[in-house]
């Protein structure tokens, strides 16, 4: 299991065994989508998320 820091909020994220490159994970602290761009070393990148205005 590799540990990596969230690009948005700097929370520590543990990558589970079996995590694959290009997999999208969700930060448990701030909820952003992160793409695993490398495993050795572990690196993440912000993944695009939908923008919305809640219908306002």
């Amino acid at each position, binding site marked *: 299991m590799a540990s990596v820091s969230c690009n948005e909020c700097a929370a520590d994220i543990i990558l589970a065994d079996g995590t694959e490159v290009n997999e999208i994970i969700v930060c448990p602290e*701030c909820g952003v989508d992160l793409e695993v761009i490398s495993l050795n070393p572990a690196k993440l990148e912000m993944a695009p998320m939908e923008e919305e205005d809640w219908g306002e």
Partner: protein
Amino acid sequence: MTSVSIIGASGFGGGELLRLLLAHPGVDIKQVTSRSHMGEYVYQVHPNLRKQTMLKFSDPSQIEAVDVLFLAQPHGKAQQNITHYASLAKKIIDLSADFRLRNADDYEQWYGEPHTAPDWLGKFVYGLPELHRDELANANYVSGVGCNATASILALLPLVKADLIDLSASVIIEIKVGSSESGALGNIGSHHAERASVIRTFSAFGHRHTAEVIQELGLDNISLTMTAVDLVRGVLATAHVQVRSGVKNKDLWKAYRSIAKENPFVRVVKEQRGIYRVPEPKILAGSNYADIGFELDESTGHIVSICAIDNLMKGSAGSAVQCMNLMLGLEENVGLEFAGLHPI
């Protein structure tokens, strides 16, 4: 089992206290008083408590000694009788504004009249566990908290504790409040025809709760603007703050996360999905949680920091019970773990 009584239990704050204390596993309610409802069953005033208790409202003059005495009277009453109340209970928690401020001059400035028991001001601990947890554990006298002050303080607490605020700029807090904040006794402004559907700014500057924020956070350059909105319960504090040069989003996350980890009833709400992406009072009705969140404009250093609470819970009775738990050496969250309703 700890014996407790409530002086002035027919108001909204007293009713909320009763709801919490009736379900609390560590306390036994002895008496609840009300001059205007003496002899009536509690559920006749607080209908949500039907089948929860067969207590009747007692005469305040017949109150007996207990372990913990809660005072939930209108502002100005507790200070007139505090010596008598202290003879009845070793521990007192006063929900009113009478003992929130440490300084008698400040009290007179903000409340417009001299305090009648100024010697007692220094004996009380301000009843917000997020600020005074260790002192509360050893306190015999604890003040309540202003609901608007609570929302304001918790919106700013991560920034103050991490020393992230540029103190050369003003801190401006816009507060939206529900109607229960004005108490159980109606007035012309709370008449349904006048209060329903409003977005009414009723205090641009100088609201009394400002004094608590200044005292507790040590910020002088701060103003609160109060706006009544079409809610029964709820406070939303939206603070506009300038942060120090170079502060980044990750610094803020660290500061907010730290406060949430230290305090069982504070949650960071800054979501990327769903409808509830920022703190909202709607889903906090009846719960003791305070939700905090933020957005930073990194190009200007302007942060909008938000806190939502239920004014009768975290802003009053919930914090009071949280304080009682600490004063009695109980787990802080006993009797307060209700999560709130959704949808509501």
